């Protein structure tokens, strides 16, 4: 599904990723862990199509060169990024944003757009599953949302859009214990043989709830070690300094 070969990324001639390689197959869950500033968000930003990076190498998504696609075209093809810091958009009603987003993606894929009633039915159901207070959906997007609510809102959007590849950038940071479980349930319910996940986290706790197929350690711009879930435990015990 996703093949990253030799990815190199600079910002203002500062090298952030270098010789980065990763392959994710359909249905797999990969976790990436790495110290602050190691380039995890940079990676997710680049995959999402954010501008401002100097990139080289190859990134294929379902055998298509991602660098040839605009951000929204990647979204249409099923790439979703739950942002580490979800943005506030004043004036824009959350429900309207979600509906516009869903319909833009459906339309791009030649599917029928949902009308207001169909959409509300869907959003109600998803919000309920995620124990997301429906009343908040009538507020401006993320404005006045608590840190954890913003994160939950990202997962709500993910579950509505049902993407093929979901990238979760530290979605667990800032969630309380119950919310962590609900979010994990949300992810698990989307786990199907065609849906893949790239989960960026600092804490192995999340991985207790979402069992990853692979865990990777990102340091110095590349993956220095890959393994199974046990790698996360090892990291937790040793820390990055004593790793290697």
């Amino acid at each position, binding site marked *: 599904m996703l093949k990253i070969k030799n990815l190199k990324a600079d910002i203002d001639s500062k090298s952030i990723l270098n010789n980065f390689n990763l392959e994710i197959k359909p249905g797999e869950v990969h976790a990436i862990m790495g110290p602050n500033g190691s380039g995890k968000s940079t990676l997710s930003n680049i995959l*999402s199509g954010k*501008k*401002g990076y100097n990139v080289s190498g190859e990134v294929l998504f379902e055998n298509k060169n991602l660098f040839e696609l*605009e951000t*929204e075209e990647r979204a249409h093809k099923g790439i979703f990024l739950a942002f580490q810091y979800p*943005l506030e958009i*004043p*004036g824009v009603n959350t429900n309207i944003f979600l509906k516009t987003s869903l319909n833009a993606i459906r339309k791009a894929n030649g599917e029928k757009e949902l009308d207001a009633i169909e959409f509300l039915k869907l959003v109600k159901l998803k919000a309920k599953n995620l124990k997301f207070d429906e009343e908040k959906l009538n507020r401006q997007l993320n404005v006045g949302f608590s840190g954890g609510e913003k994160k939950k809102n990202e997962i709500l959007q993910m579950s509505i*859009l049902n993407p093929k590849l979901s990238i979760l950038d530290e979605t667990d940071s800032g969630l309380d214990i119950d919310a962590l479980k609900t979010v994990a349930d949300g992810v698990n319910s989307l786990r199907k043989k065609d849906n893949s996940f790239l989960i960026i986290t600092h804490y192995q706790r999340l991985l207790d709830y979402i069992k990853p197929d692979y865990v990777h350690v990102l340091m110095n711009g590349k993956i220095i070690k890959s393994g199974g879930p046990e790698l996360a435990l090892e990291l937790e015990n040793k820390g990055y300094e004593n790793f290697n």
Partner: protein
Amino acid sequence: MREKQIDKLKDYKYGFTTDIENIRAPKGLNKEVIEFISKAKKEPKWMLDWRMKAFERLKNLKEPNWQKPKYPKIDYQDIYYYSAPKSASDKPKSIDELDPKLLETYKKLGIPLQEQQRLNGIAVDAVFDSVSVATTFKDKLNEVGVIFCSISEAIQKHPELVKKYLGSVIPLTDHYFATLNSAVFTDGSFVYIPPGVRCPMELSTYFRINASQTGQFERTLIIADKGSYVSYLEGCTAPMRDENQLHAANVELVALDDAEIKYSTVQNWYPGDENGKGGIYNFVTKRGLCKGINSKISWTQVETGSAITWKYPSCILQGDNSIGEFYSIAITNNHQKADTGTKMIHLGKNTKSKIISKGISAGFSDMTYRGLVDISSKAKNSTNYTQCDSLLMGNKCGAHTVPYIKNKNPESNIAHEATTSKISEEQLHYCQQRGLNPEEAVGLIVNGFCKEVLQQLPMEFAVEAQKLVGISLEGSVG
């Protein structure tokens, strides 16, 4: 990557020209031309005298130039002041007798005039260059005593009302453009709502400039008698041309005791091309008089077109407890310029005014909000609330806020809030990540920004206006 293959000029979908035979007054501004206009409209002598008085006065007036958007000197002798489709010179009795070319034009503009296709619940007066070519639902309105016709017809059929109120809000001698209009005005709408009547449908006027080198001098007069209510909307478009054309309108509103007038504008005159060539100069005087106690006048404007927009729809709150409101969205893109806002003149006791202004500038454009809140010493216990928000797109455009406040009454209260914000790259990226293209993203954010004002528009027009807001900003991102 994305291919920007949109031909910008094609974006203005109202830019076509109707090929129709015209009757024109000779070029230039002089006594003979004014006589020509008055004669073409079969006006009584008092009207011609009124025009001549304005013309005499005009000779002593100077064009103002305190506004921010400057423009090349206008040669007033190089303009046609009257142009009308030949077929409309003897106004047909019914719409079915209208020149098919005119019917087709309005149909293309989304304003079908024929009986069977009419917009539901909306009566339309269609003004083409210098004449009103048709007014729909006249009879139905007549049944409840509402008069809705062209101002030309009103001058002939309701002289007592016109004499009483024309120039009562915007005096003949007010300022250069208003006086020019008083001398040469051609057509516009007239509305009278009798006491106690709630006008059963939306009234609207659609202004179309078609002929080249022609100025449009619209004159509209709306009178809401005691305890009546009316909601009125005007829309405007013009063909794409390299030349600048002048639209200098006067709109007067009078609300008597307990009456309410809601006046909405969706202004989409041709804005000029990407490089700022051509477009309409929209220099308009709009003023409402809350003459009676408990009266209310509310202006809502969505200004997206014109090369230069220069107007301050205002309220004179003369009656005690009267209310004035101004809701505005002004959008400038490319090289458009706008200097717009309102004046709220509080004269009566317990008068209230509210100003909500949303300015959006993109490209190389420049936007000024200019507003006056004037509370006189007699206007005890009066309040004003002003909120002025600017949204900038890119860093080559400008936004300015110039609020003037005069409060001569210590018991009155004025509150002013202003914000300036920018659509950030991060916000755009967030929206794009959720599948919206940059234009859709901007549309969504901008519509959110304008929501408070859009909500004021009559339902039937809110959706159109919302689309227009998006279209006006097309090409301003990415």
